């Protein structure tokens, strides 16, 4: 059993990673962090008690982050997927698409969606 978190290079990614660590602790499972950023993932904020595996995207088959995450959900037998979400403009969605939306709709396991509190 494991909780799997998708961590993009953004504040939502940091929030998702923290929420996923808490979720793993409460379920008593391991944590698999899929690093969607192009640079190394900082996991120093995760409590030492939680066992973390960082998975990187490798090569062309992982170019689409949604494919990469869904393949890892299957490979690691995750019971929960954690993602960070934020408000997007229609233009931004039209140009770049929405990774969160596709993960929500296509994930075979329940998804925990974390958002930043925009007022703070």
């Amino acid at each position, binding site marked *: 059993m494991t909780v799997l978190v998708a961590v*993009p290079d953004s504040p939502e990614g940091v929030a998702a990673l923290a929420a996923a660590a808490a979720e793993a602790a409460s379920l008593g499972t391991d944590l698999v962090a899929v690093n969607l950023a192009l640079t190394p993932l900082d996991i120093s904020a995760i409590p030492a008690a939680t066992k973390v595996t960082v998975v990187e*995207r490798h090569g062309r088959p992982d170019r689409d982050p949604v494919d990469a995450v869904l393949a890892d959900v299957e490979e690691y037998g995750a019971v929960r997927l954690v993602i960070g979400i934020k408000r997007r403009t229609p233009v*931004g969605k039209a140009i770049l*698409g929405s990774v969160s939306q596709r993960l929500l709709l296509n994930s075979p396991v329940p998804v925990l969606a974390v958002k930043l*509190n925009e007022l703070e």
Partner: protein
Amino acid sequence: MAHTTTPASNAEHPALPADTPGPHSRRLGLIAVIATFGGLLFGYDTGVINGALAPMKDDLGLSSFTEGFVVSILIFGAALGALAGGRLSDQYGRRHNIIVLAAVFGLGTLGCVLAPTWQVLAVFRFVLGLAVGGASATVPVYLAEVSPYERRGSVVTRNEVMIVSGQFAAFVINAVIFNLWGDHDGVWRWMLLVAVLPAIALFVGMLRMPESPRWLSSQGRDDEAHAVLRQIRSAERADAEMAEVRALALEEQEAQTGGWTDLAVPWIRRLIFVGIGLGVFQQFTGINSIMYYGSQLLEDAGFTAKAAVLGNTLFGLASVLGISVGIVVMNKIDRRVMLLGGFTLTTLFHLLVGISALVLPDGSVKPYVILAFAVLFVFSMQGTIGPLVWLLLAEIFPLKIRSFAMGVCVFCLWLANASVAFGFPPVVDAIGIAPTFFIFAGLGGLALIFIATSVPETRGLTLEEFEDSFKARHTPQENHS
């Protein structure tokens, strides 16, 4: 100028035994000579139009619009050819790709030579463009992949020199043919036909050359890769180098990780905009308006047709000398300083060409003054901005998105090249030489602002140091609990 430089590698080089000379050195030397015919063809086919254009216009009845169309359609073809060429050479291999390209070069050339109308000419110029773009994406990669790492840099820059040498050769051959047989209507067809010779040399030569060992390894064909290494390295070096070849093949796959969705990250997006800006402003110097229309320009300035074609060879010479100097000084001066200096010089010479065309009385001095300033422009551009933009494109992107990012930037660079090639004749026709060069000077001013405000310094930094500092500067600081 447009061609791809192979990205600097991050891979470590564990003490490999020195590559002692032997029969394999001659084999490697031969490979380099044969493959650079691809660069020579690139240069010849882009340069030959300059000089062929004047007789072609009379023979086929071109207007300034169809003139720009016939010239620029090759560059549009090259933009597509560069995209497709990279994919095809990953799929079917470098050697296979170069052989196919040599055939396309030959086919395109013959089609242009025999074209009865400008429409048919345009179709085959497009075909030639596909080959030019494909060569730009394949030849430097092949050269880098067969060379031992000690010589990788010099072999790849040799290809850059070959491209401008191809243009220079085209200018000289144009000048000779035009001055001997300029009275014949179809003289331009003979100028184009010369390009068949290097295409045949490339085709026949590459049939006897081996596939890239790194590509073979990326296809899981390590035995064949090793056999190739045995041909082009000393025996013990070949055995020791296999590990490096495998590591570099993996690194190459790693470089194809990132794509469109990664543009959601602000600092990555910004870096790609910087790359696009560099490529576009490199072309907006108007270097290729000289390389494609130099003879026309000199005729407009007051030279006779035959003198213009002769004077044009100086542009080719300045280009070769400029690149040769640029390659030597490139790593001794900070990138930003060299870019700012380069654009300052090119903008200055644009202004001087424009002012000379505007204020000097028509007569014996004016064409020579314009020629001198335009030659100085070409030399300053090719000595600084030309090679430096390619170097920057190869080194500013994080490994994981390098393939995608370079593809986007090089595509935009080709499109900018094509739009200058397309627009130059009608604009000169409509407003004259002087205002056209003032437009280039204005674009140069914008380029200076862009570089001063947006282009980061990379010289003396490792890729990781550069990424960390750029990311820190261009990540929005948000407060979140």
